[in-house]
């Protein structure tokens, strides 16, 4: 369980808040997506939760323990994957995992099995200094789950990965959730968030603008219309119909009966379009 209440953070102490009154909670067995543009304050919140930044104002707890009271043994329950590289460059990929596993006093995963799952088995014996960015990213991710954490922080876990590897990583993230981990996932990637997250929060300029399950949000913000495409005397034509009302349903049925119907699209919002609507800004720089 991750609990955050009215969190504020001011790096310079000049009333210029990088995070302002942020509140949310992540229950065990759920993935909570933290979505926002660059500079929104996502990493700041994560770093406060991990104790890398001091807690200034508000409440932040991991599994019932205030983040300012975390002792090193507590980290047996937590996993972290950061945006900045932080691997032992002179060690091999395997050694990095095995070394980290050795620090825990809880059961850990077999490094070799994990490496094999993300396609790093062949590179297991290579020094990390010679890894590509995507290889390091995968290794960081594996390291974060080596102790089967109860609480897992993932900062952009899918960035820099090819689509096939990204799929595997997403599967591994779901496995963590399914065994009961509370996961805070930070990302710019709306599609990844939509696929993975049970709940998401939109954050911009340090404030949470909206929060809910991707489905709730998409329904809440989308126009409840369907777009139908059909042929009318050989020419392509399209219409937007409101299926909430009888006329719309009638019209759809009529087009379908005529045999000219070609496609039906729902016009529910995407997370990205909601974000743009909320902030008036585009997500990816």
């Amino acid at each position: 369980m991750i609990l955050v209440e009215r969190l504020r953070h001011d790096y310079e102490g000049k009333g210029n808040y990088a995070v302002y009154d942020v509140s949310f909670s992540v229950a065990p067995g759920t993935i909570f997506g933290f979505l926002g543009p660059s500079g929104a304050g996502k990493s700041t919140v994560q770093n406060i939760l991990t104790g890398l930044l001091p807690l200034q104002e508000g409440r932040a707890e991991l599994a019932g323990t205030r983040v300012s009271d975390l002792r090193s043994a507590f980290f047996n329950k937590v996993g972290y994957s950061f945006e900045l590289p932080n691997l032992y460059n002179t060690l091999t990929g395997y050694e990095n995992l095995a070394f980290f596993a050795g620090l825990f006093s809880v059961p850990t995963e077999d490094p070799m099995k994990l490496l094999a799952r993300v396609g790093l088995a062949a590179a297991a014996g290579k020094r990390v200094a010679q890894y590509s960015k995507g290889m390091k990213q995968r290794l960081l991710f594996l390291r974060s789950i080596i102790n089967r954490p109860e609480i897992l922080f993932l900062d952009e876990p899918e960035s820099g990965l090819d689509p096939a590897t990204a799929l595997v990583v997403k599967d591994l993230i779901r496995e963590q959730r399914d065994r009961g981990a509370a996961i805070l996932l930070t990302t710019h990637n709306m599609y990844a968030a939509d696929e993975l997250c049970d709940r998401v929060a939109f954050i911009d300029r340090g404030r949470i603008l909206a929060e809910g399950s991707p489905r709730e949000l998409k329904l809440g913000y989308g126009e409840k219309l369907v777009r139908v495409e059909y042929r009318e005397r050989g020419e392509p034509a399209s219409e937007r119909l409101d299926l909430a009302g009888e006329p719309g349903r009638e019209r759809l049925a009529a087009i379908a009966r005529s045999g000219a119907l070609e496609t039906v699209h729902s016009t529910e919002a995407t997370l990205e379009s909601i974000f743009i609507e909320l902030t008036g800004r585009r997500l990816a720089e």
Partner: protein
Amino acid sequence: MKAFFTLLALETRVLARGGFPVVILVVLAASALSVHALRAVDAAADAASPAGLAGPERLEAGPWTFTVIRAAARPALHERMVTTLLVYEVLILGFLFVAVGLFQQFEEGSLRAYRLSPGGQARWMGAKLLVWTVAGVAYGLAFLAASFELPAWRALPGVVALSALGSLLMTTLGLLLASFSRNLSQWFPPAVGLLALNMAPAALAESWPEARWFAPGGAALAGFEALLGQGDAKPLGAAFAWLGAALALALPLSWLALRARVFKEGGR
């Protein structure tokens, strides 16, 4: 315990993989050669002044006559070189390399990850101190062997103990100093300054023997001279006591500095 052994394995592996072994072999060879060279110089000097002629020398200058009395058992040059290198090279090994290792961990960010593991500061510090103390002792013995200056069996435990205590103290001081810097260039000026202060007693020893008790280097020098039969044996106990007391002071200071500067929240 498992975590501590894991850290020991990490430290030794990083040590073995960096440029360290090559650097240390080159320095070892140069040091041993300098002892051998001085031994040849000493032998030549002995041949030039046969024992029978050695004795008080008279110098006449105007109305005065000086009598130069040689110190009864002035250690030979090469013997002095051995103790000097033991103190100012072997013992500072940990002081230097523990800092290099720390800056490497800052740079690669691995320390940041470590802080979010259950490893903790005590094990981290303990592993570094142990590895560099053992490395210091091993290097000291290798240096003595390569210089053909291994002490008699009776003196060996003392030499090992003094090297261990000296290395442990200097490594602890190395961590203390390094925790105030973030990279080698910030660290270099104060490190050189401290090492120069550490060497000052050796330079002053001729005119002011008591000066040695102002720096760990001087105390260790007194101890090694006593152990290797180059002076009187009295200062040996004082040397151990001095270094032990300094360690008792340095350990908590180093712990606190690391806590505040390296392991603190908000640190790197």
